[in-house]
């Protein structure tokens, strides 16, 4: 059930790269079809997910290029769900709506490259190997790209810069 198992992560990876749901769907679909053709030659024992995400991310980039559009998926938080528990927990206070809204607004103004790496890590919770595959870079580069993107986000949010390495995965 590889399609069903991976269609969610494939679609969302394509979505953050292509920036458009219809294009992301096309990219995920043709990624799966290409993977199907190539699967008979797929190296046994190698993890499937990064390999698939790499193909899908490439498709998504091609789609975006073909559309001649700057990516930029407009991020939005869903409306607050009504909560049953009356007293907000300390965790909920820390993760209150307002700081999250501010983060989303700030991210929407950032460069695609920074948004992509942040989305893959924190929204899709991809592993480093998967991020490297999807971004088409070396695993070692993922850390530094993420760290730089977080640094720029902090700067825009007016947070003090953190010690080097603190933003690493």
């Amino acid at each position, binding site marked *: 059930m590889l399609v069903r198992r991976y269609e969610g992560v494939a679609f969302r990876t394509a979505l953050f790269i292509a920036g458009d749901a219809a294009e992301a769907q096309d990219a995920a679909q043709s990624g799966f079809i290409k993977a199907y053709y190539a699967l008979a*030659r797929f190296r046994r024992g190698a993890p499937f997910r990064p390999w698939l995400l790499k193909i899908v991310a490439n498709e998504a980039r091609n789609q975006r290029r073909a559309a001649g559009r700057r990516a930029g998926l407009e991020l939005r938080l869903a409306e607050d769900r009504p909560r049953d528990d009356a007293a907000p927990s300390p965790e909920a206070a820390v993760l209150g709506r307002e700081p999250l809204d501010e983060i989303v607004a700030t991210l929407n103004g950032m460069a695609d490259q920074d948004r992509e790496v942040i989305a893959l890590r924190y929204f899709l919770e991809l592993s480093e190997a998967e991020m490297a595959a999807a971004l088409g870079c070396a695993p070692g580069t993922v850390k530094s790209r993420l760290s730089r993107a977080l640094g720029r986000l902090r700067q825009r949010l007016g947070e003090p810069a953190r010690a080097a390495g603190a933003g690493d995965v």
Partner: protein
Amino acid sequence: MSRPDDLLERRLEEVGRRLELPPDPSLASAIGAHLRRRPRRAPWSALLRAPRSLAVAGAALLLLGGGLVALPGVRTAVAGWLGIPGVRIEAEPGRRPPGVARAELDIGRRVSLEEAAAAVPFEVLEPTLAGLGAPDSVFLDERFESGRVTLVYDAGARLPRAAETGVGLLLTEFEATLDEDLVKKLTFEGTVVEPVAIGDDRGYWLGGEPHVILYGRPGGEVLSDTVRLAGNTLVWQHDGLTLRLESALGKRQALRVARSVR
């Protein structure tokens, strides 16, 4: 991955949980429809009945899983290993699924003919057919152990443009042993595969409907970016070298070019 203790990182994770995203589309049925076709053997497949394509059938089953086990088109796929080192041709019954677009030609970096010749252990051969002239560009792909050289002839007065490659003619040369699948071709309904003779050499002509081509590395790793459509193609072996000629030329003309390769 451990839970970050940094507040911003925790907030980013929370943003991820609360993002308003379009619902995940169900891809399985659309992909199944692409790959599920009426079973029909290509006419020449009877000749090649011996090794069935367990790999392709297995791939389909693995990808589509239990719900779609009844994929007669894919399960009856027939593999043809035609004795050209490094090349595997597999006939898939049914029509070619859409979804493989024309992709970039993935043939390595551009070099001079001299550079290419110096980089590979074999002699780089060229067509000597009058009027064809010298290649317009030469590419070297070093992902192959002993290198793969591709001569590119642009489309123009002497050569029609091949829709799948955008150029007039590609001649690819590489060394391979019999058990390596460096180039794989998947054919569907409408593609003709025919044994041909090129002087004393044996080869195959693939014409008609475009087929799907993909490249791999020894050891089985697939270069997944290389999946693309290919048009009229001649593959043959000459002195331990595997040659692949792709163009919009018909069989007779392609054979004339191939026979002039020295």
